[in-house]
């Protein structure tokens, strides 16, 4: 699905990389545990997390992940945005819970990565 479609499904708003919503993504991984994310060999997925801090962005950087969804209406801080921009990431903020975001995206065809 395109990131634009993804945004529609989860009431998402691109807070970084808004000009790249035509890009597509096939896989998703939802976790608040960053060590779990770091075990994945793939980097072709959208990271869906409720963890809104600098280490979530750092983890995406280390994992070469380009797309992130920050759930539960959490604030994406200036230092998070700065690091995300530096690493060419698209960051989407959603007011929905991690559970709801993952469920809606899975239902719409985003594949699980595990």
């Amino acid at each position, binding site marked *: 699905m395109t990131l634009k479609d993804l945004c529609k499904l989860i009431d998402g708003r691109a807070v970084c990389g808004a000009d790249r919503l035509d890009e597509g993504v096939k896989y998703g991984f939802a976790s*608040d*545990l960053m060590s779990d994310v*770091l*075990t994945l060999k793939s980097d072709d997925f959208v990271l869906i997390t409720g*963890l809104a801090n600098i280490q979530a962005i*750092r983890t995406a*950087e*280390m994992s*070469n992940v380009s797309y992130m969804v920050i759930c539960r209406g959490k604030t994406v801080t200036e*230092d998070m945005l700065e690091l995300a921009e530096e690493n060419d990431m698209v960051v989407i903020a959603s007011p929905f819970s991690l559970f709801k975001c993952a469920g809606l995206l899975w239902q719409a065809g985003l594949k699980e990565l595990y």
Partner: protein
Amino acid sequence: MRFEYKVEGGDFTQAGNAASAIKKTLKQLGVDPVVIKRVVVALYEAEVNIVAHAWRGVIYADIEGSGIKLRLEDEGPGIPDIGKAMTRGFSTASEGVREMGFGAGMGLPNISENADEFHIDTVVGEGTTLNIGIRF
């Protein structure tokens, strides 16, 4: 090529700076992206461990044509039982560390899985040194 980075215990705002810098250098050197990911994941987990558990530490990175050698020396509480610390799910991390998305007992196993060589030296009450080697 040798790099050195200082790490302060408890300072999560800086955790990952060394791994980020090494990632950029390895990319510039044209190292295989799969190998770069193994290096930065191992280094990042180890860097987070210093921030989460130690008082301070120094990271030394030696990059040669054949691979990278990382040495992370910290001053800290040390590891009383390395066998337990290497067990997935075992952790002594604080609540604050868990709130940062770590502290689930996966750090050392993650490092070990990504490394070609991995060795821990530790003295309780003094500190821990990790030696990590990854071939290009």
